[in-house]
């Protein structure tokens, strides 16, 4: 019970940060919605941990609900890292395009 309250406090802290970032226009609307849903689901999972326990048991898993949540979060993390990698790659390509254009422009000006 204490752990659940503790986890909810942490989640509430993140949600408040999220609203703060949105108010200061540090994140886009889509990002805000994505993270709000993400933390909302995390909070619901904590509140309904016992129900998840029984759901997991009915599905035939031997572990507890919290273990399943942990596995899911690891999968989620891998996915986010993968997406981040692709995004970085795209940014790198954009940087190259800018560097290339500058090189053409400088060559033309120095002719």
């Amino acid at each position, binding site marked *: 019970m204490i752990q659940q309250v503790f986890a909810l406090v942490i989640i509430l802290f993140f949600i408040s940060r999220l609203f703060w970032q949105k108010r200061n226009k540090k994140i886009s609307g889509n990002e805000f919605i994505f993270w709000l849903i993400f933390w909302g689901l995390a909070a619901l999972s904590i509140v309904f941990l016992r129900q998840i326990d029984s759901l997991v048991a009915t599905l035939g898993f031997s572990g507890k609900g919290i273990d399943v949540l942990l596995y899911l979060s690891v999968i989620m993390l891998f996915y986010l890292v993968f997406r981040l990698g*692709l995004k970085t790659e795209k940014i790198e*390509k954009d940087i190259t395009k800018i560097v290339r254009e*500058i090189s053409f422009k400088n060559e033309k000006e120095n002719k």
Partner: protein
Amino acid sequence: MTKFKVFIIVPAYNEEKNIEKIIDEVKPLADELVVVDDGSSDRTFELAKKQGAIVLRHLINRGQGAALQTGDEYALNNQADIVVHFDADGQFLAKEIKEMILPIQNNEADAVFGSRFLCKKSEIPWFKEKIIIPLAGLVNKILINVSLTDPQNGFRALSRKALEKITIENDGMAHCSEILYKVFKNKLTIKEIPVTVVYHDFGQGLLKGKGRGTGGFRIIKDLLLVKLMN
């Protein structure tokens, strides 16, 4: 014979020791010699400029693939008929450029690749010859289903037709495989020509090489990314 406008592209990263000699040797063989200084921190840019080459300067290091694409785009925009990719580290012999462009001039090929394993004898370091190159060949075969005798050779000549169809998207060293893949994908005609490669130092390791996007594992990762993004 029709006069072909030949552009030689020399990507250079911190090559102040070799660049003057390379330009001296290569310039008489080209209609235009384009050195792409890939963000060097030494005097590569100044020396190349002094030698009278066209120098395109990347403000920051972007990798050999990016430098070659910069040169290719410049050549295309300046009516090149043939483009030769030639390394700045003195590994290749300038006198072999003529042999490389001949099949394109004779309309026998759109893309000509140099090979260390056809007739001419190059002093290839043991580890590179027995481990790195066969491994690279295997990766090429598995990932892009292409086999040439020397898929990682950077000495190549491309016709305008090939240039128009190939955009190098990989900034690092995986561009070798990418070019091959795109040549095959666009059904361009290919010819392999024996070339000599002179080794000064080892250059490419499994973990790290010189400049951005080098090292064997990084190249494999880049190739996988190219596949995923396509």
